[in-house]
């Protein structure tokens, strides 16, 4: 297959970051903070997490040394593209009292520099595509998201070493990014440290033209394909998606929800780290004088009691109904709502659940405990 791929070395990666910066992008890439790989501004390869692997399991995350020098030898960062494109706290408007009423401040968004996402993984891109569907392609698009999204340059990376909580192979969203990038890097370590670069857009080609690169040889392409094959075989978790929607709908009254609720802390962490969860609430704030008022949109979660607050009380007073809402939305109702699974298999909700609750294990337990009303092809709508 001729992918018009090029090869760059470590200096080339450094130059790539510099070229993006010189084009006015804030380069947001993986870097180590407080013992974990987070996405933050990076100025060069020195900021990347070199020679580190992330050991991930339910409620467990540790960075451990690798026996090589890989820059991208870790899996999904603590939070991926979500906080970059869909911030936790978005100022919608600010109003000031004036003599004849009030006036609105100009939006701060307009002067924000566009972002280049470096090291985005296949699950990250699949999640961004879901957010595009939810926030852009429906009847009303989200202006703040649209603006950030349009300017964003994406340098994706093929996952070479999935974590213990990864299952993108099950959800069909990885480990090799298929679309949604301007440039795609696959890190190759032997015999020399280099990156296979594939171009996904005109903009990507323009940027790559500024970096010294050599055409990829058959050996480079084969090595890159091998990275994908090995990564696919090393997924830490599996999610059986076949008929999952029907299983969850049939499990609506399952006693299993009480079992999960006895363990679940209703802390919201799973939804807030989930790259596809998009729920927010709108909050109005005013200062003491009442002369300045602001409207903010902040991340919210179906695990919080007030999330389902309507006149008279919360619809989901008990944790059992909140967990049911979350997993049923992700794995079943999302399919009816958006025509796709709401889960991209990144494993973040498993790793970052302080109670070690595992969406793949709960889905399997529900499947085992739930007799479907009918079986076979006819049951799958």
């Amino acid at each position: 297959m001729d992918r018009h791929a090029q090869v760059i070395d470590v200096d080339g990666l450094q130059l790539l970051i510099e070229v993006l910066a010189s084009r006015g992008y804030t380069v947001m890439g993986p870097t180590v903070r407080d013992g974990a790989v987070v996405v933050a501004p990076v100025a060069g390869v020195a900021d990347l997490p070199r020679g580190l692997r992330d050991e991930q399991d339910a409620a467990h995350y540790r960075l451990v040394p690798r026996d090589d020098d890989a820059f991208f030898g870790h899996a999904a960062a603590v939070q991926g593209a979500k906080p970059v494109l869909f911030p936790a706290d978005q100022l919608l408007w600010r109003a000031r009292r004036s003599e004849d009423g009030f006036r609105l401040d100009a939006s701060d968004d307009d002067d924000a520099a566009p972002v280049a996402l470096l090291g985005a993984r296949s699950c990250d891109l699949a999640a961004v595509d879901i957010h595009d569907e939810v926030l852009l392609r429906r009847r009303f698009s989200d202006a703040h998201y649209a603006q950030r999204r349009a300017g964003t340059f994406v340098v994706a990376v093929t996952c070479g070493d999935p974590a213990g909580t990864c299952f993108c192979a099950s959800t069909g969203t990885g480990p090799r990014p298929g679309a949604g990038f301007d440039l795609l890097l696959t890190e190759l370590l032997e015999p020399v440290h280099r990156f296979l670069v594939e171009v996904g857009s005109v903009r990507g080609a323009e940027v790559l033209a500024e970096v010294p690169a050599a055409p990829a040889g058959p050996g480079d392409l084969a090595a890159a394909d091998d990275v994908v094959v090995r990564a696919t075989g090393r997924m830490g978790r599996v999610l059986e998606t076949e008929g999952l929607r029907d299983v969850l709908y049939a499990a609506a009254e399952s006693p299993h929800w009480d079992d999960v609720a006895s363990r679940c802390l209703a802390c919201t962490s799973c939804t807030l780290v989930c790259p596809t969860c998009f729920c927010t609430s709108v909050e109005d704030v005013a200062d003491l004088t009442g002369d300045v008022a602001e409207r903010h949109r902040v991340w919210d979660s179906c695990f919080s009691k007030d999330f389902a607050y309507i006149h008279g009380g919360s619809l989901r007073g008990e944790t059992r109904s909140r967990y049911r809402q979350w997993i049923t939305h992700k794995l079943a109702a999302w399919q009816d709502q958006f025509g796709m699974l709401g889960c991209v298999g990144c494993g973040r909700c498993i790793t970052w659940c302080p109670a070690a609750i595992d969406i793949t294990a709960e889905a399997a337990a529900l499947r085992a405990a739930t007799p479907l009303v009918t079986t076979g092809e006819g049951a799958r709508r």
Partner: protein
Amino acid sequence: MTTTPLLPVPHVPPARATRPTLAVWKFASCDGCQLTLLNCEDELMALAGAVRIAYFPEATRAVVDGPYDLSLVEGSVTTPEEVERIGQIRAMSRHLVTIGACATTGGIQALRNFADVAEFRSVVYAHPEYLSTLDRSTPISAHVTVDFELRGCPVDKNQLLEVLAAYLQRRRPRIPTYSVCVECKRRGAVCVTVAHGTPCLGPVTQAGCGALCPAFARGCYGCFGPQDSPNTSALADRLLAAGMAPDEVMRVYRTFNAASEPFRRESERHEGEVSS
């Protein structure tokens, strides 16, 4: 007594010309919450313009006689004299808001609730007969009707200003009751439990501090008391499984909000439990 989740209705709008009077009262407490009010340096002028500070001994000796439009009450009730005094203050106050862990749950001094006060008294004081103290430390809401309870040890400055602004603007204060984890994730902090194995009470604790401790790589101590859906036993199970001794689990629940129902029940569950 019950507390209402909303600021009082009906409410007489505070006209700009006649600023509402504000009184700040102290019961058994460390003054930290009142200090939070004084620490609102940038907002103090605006506050002084919006309310008339009528009684605030921590800040000024000038006293305006009651009744007061809004009373902020810090501290818990620990003596017979305080039982009487809180009744008088309630009678003098149109609206009464309690501030801080002491006033809302009994505070750290509610550790006496788990022990024998007579014994403390005889051990600590040369003349215990001079003391008149109750054997329980109780929140203000155990004695009088409270219009709003603001949690925290100490209260958060921005939440305090929000409650005052809401009072002045006759709206509901925006004080969420969800967990500290919400604030922790929103600010992008790395979870200390998952990434460092540090015990953290964030999942059972009400937000308000902005996840201050986790942002500095420390576990949450539970300063803001239980969140609205606190699964204290599931968190205790996690702490025990991670190797924490039962008496330590008892102690993490027994701090500034020891007497809050969910924390009290959980700490008592681990009383006398032996490590396996």
